């Protein structure tokens, strides 16, 4: 502290203003930050870098506990990624933190040349995935998965929510090499008794069975997809659900197997339908010569605007109702 009066608590820019829930984020556990710190205490090779977004990426825990392994390069993501490459080449495991857009689109060449190509043990951790912020078009990462997925040697992981964050962090740490980890800070405490979700890199996680269709969702889209399944049931449609927490390496075998069992596969992602989960599934189905219909739900090739997450999800067809509606229409066509 510099002795000046403390500034206002910096929020995580997720909701803000009138949209902020009454209970501010202070009481919400920092599932990511706590897991990273726990790991770093076990593993002296872990170092943490943050580009002026320490609180927003929950790395204040690391900074305050292990300051000698905390690096603050300032608002300079290209340099931060290069530094991480240099640290990783020198025997350390470097965890880089900022918002998803600034972790991917901005330093893309640096990530490609200084992390992916040399297979450096760097974990690029992006917050504010997709349509999750009031901060507007500059801060909305609708193409980050596509960008990272296109890079050779890169692993792309997106946990479905706070309950899967610890497993995602541990999986990334145990994977030697480049990882892009995309997530949103928890908005609320997990209800008591919520089980921790496992995560095995490269294996799609089946969550529910259903004969009429299979919904493959990722990240923040898993929850509305789960709710959509309930709505569909009321219309006599039994859809299954799977969580594609790893977009790369992609579980092609799972998709091929499911294509044999379903006439309709639906992808739901908090991301552009170009280059992400929907594209990954489409590629598998096309190469397998599958006749299974495919419906890709997500951001439809347009930039978004700043607003609350609920508004944005509604507006871009990612609410439970919108997902159910789209599936209902498509399944009529598919089940003809």
């Amino acid at each position, binding site marked *: 502290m510099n002795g000046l009066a403390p500034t206002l608590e910096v929020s995580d820019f997720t909701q803000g203003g009138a949209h902020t829930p009454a209970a501010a984020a202070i009481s919400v556990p920092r599932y990511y930050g706590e897991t990273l710190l726990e790991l770093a205490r076990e593993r002296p090779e872990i170092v943490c870098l943050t580009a002026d977004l320490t609180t927003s990426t929950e790395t204040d825990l690391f900074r305050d506990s292990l300051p000698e392994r905390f690096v603050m390069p300032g608002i*300079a993501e*290209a340099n931060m990624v290069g530094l991480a490459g240099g640290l990783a080449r*020198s025997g350390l495991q470097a965890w880089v933190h900022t918002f998803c857009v600034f972790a991917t689109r901005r330093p893309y*060449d640096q990530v490609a040349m200084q992390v992916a190509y040399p297979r450096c043990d760097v974990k690029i951790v992006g917050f504010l995935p997709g349509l999750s912020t009031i901060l507007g078009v500059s801060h909305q990462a609708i193409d980050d998965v596509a960008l990272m997925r296109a890079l050779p040697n890169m692993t792309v992981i997106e946990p479905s929510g706070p309950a899967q964050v610890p497993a995602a962090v541990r999986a990334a740490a145990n994977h030697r090499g480049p990882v892009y980890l995309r997530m949103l800070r928890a908005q609320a405490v997990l209800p008591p008794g919520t089980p921790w979700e496992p995560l095995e890199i490269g294996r799609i996680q089946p969550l529910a069975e259903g004969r009429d269709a299979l919904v493959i969702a990722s990240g923040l889209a898993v929850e509305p997809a789960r709710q959509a399944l309930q709505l569909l049931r009321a219309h006599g449609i039994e859809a299954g659900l799977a969580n594609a927490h790893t977009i790369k390496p992609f579980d092609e075998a799972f998709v091929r197997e499911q294509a044999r069992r379903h006439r309709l596969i639906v992808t739901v992602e908090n991301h552009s339908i170009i280059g992400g989960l929907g594209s990954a599934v489409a590629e598998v189905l096309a190469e397998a010569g599958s006749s299974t219909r495919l419906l890709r739900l997500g951001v439809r090739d347009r930039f978004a605007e700043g607003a609350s997450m609920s508004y944005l999800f509604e507006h871009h067809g990612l609410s439970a109702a919108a997902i159910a509606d789209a599936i209902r229409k498509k399944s009529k066509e598919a089940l003809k």
Partner: protein
Amino acid sequence: MSRTAAPKGNSTAAGGEGTPVNALTLPSHAPWQQRGRLALHEPELRQVAHALRRTVIELVRRHGQGYVQQGLGAAEIFASLYFHEARIDPADARWDARDRCILSTAHNSALFHAALALRGMIPAVALDGYVQDGSPLEINVSERLGPMVEGTFGSLGQGLSVAAGMALASRIRGVPYRVNVVLGDGELEEGQVWEAAMFAGSEGLHNLCVVLDLNWMQVEGHTDSVLRLNPIADKWRAFNWQVIEADGHDLGALLAAFAQARAQSERPTMVVATTVPGKGVSALEGVISHNAKLPADVADTALRELGVSA
């Protein structure tokens, strides 16, 4: 110093435009391939620089075009870096306590590969693959070659950030080593260089030393015709660096600069080394050409000038 016979592979390497393939005259000199900091003095370093220049011409001659001007221009920088300053082990490129040498100007590859071979970090015969299809000796240096290449920096502006990360890792891990970077002047136009400069200056990475190969040359021509780089030294001073200005062909000045960098305990060091493109070959000296054509007759004249009989 003994000069070994040219490896047999030379006779089969492809020549540019039907030019007969020339043999390489790179000497193999065991004392120059020892582990550790060689700390060679000026007279020997002059021999090193001379051998490097010859090899640059010989390598570029085979293609008729390449980064010959930069290679000739930075011969003293590379001689002083690899044969005086840097503590390396040619037999163990992964030696944890080695000094790191980062070539941020990855296109200066004829000189770089020649230096690696002369230092014993790659076999001299490997030079025959230089810029041949399928060879790991690419025109932009790549770590495909192996761990003796500390990073891949064909995309300009990235070397200093990685070097700063390595310098910082030395502090975090408590493993003392130095990190040296050869940076290009045209590269100063990349914003990331200044991000890294600000970081290194702010962190006081005193084990980091950059040699700026100031040849005033970039693809478009003279750097001043593109962007005004001056005042270069003042810019780096303002970023909290120790700045030393040196004639990049004056070995004594370069050694003194490295010594001053070593003695520094608070700041990273920037050695602004003014160099002349094509230095040492009268037909090429001072010619501004980023990727120069090198016809066989010019190359042969150059080699004669450098003491190689045809």
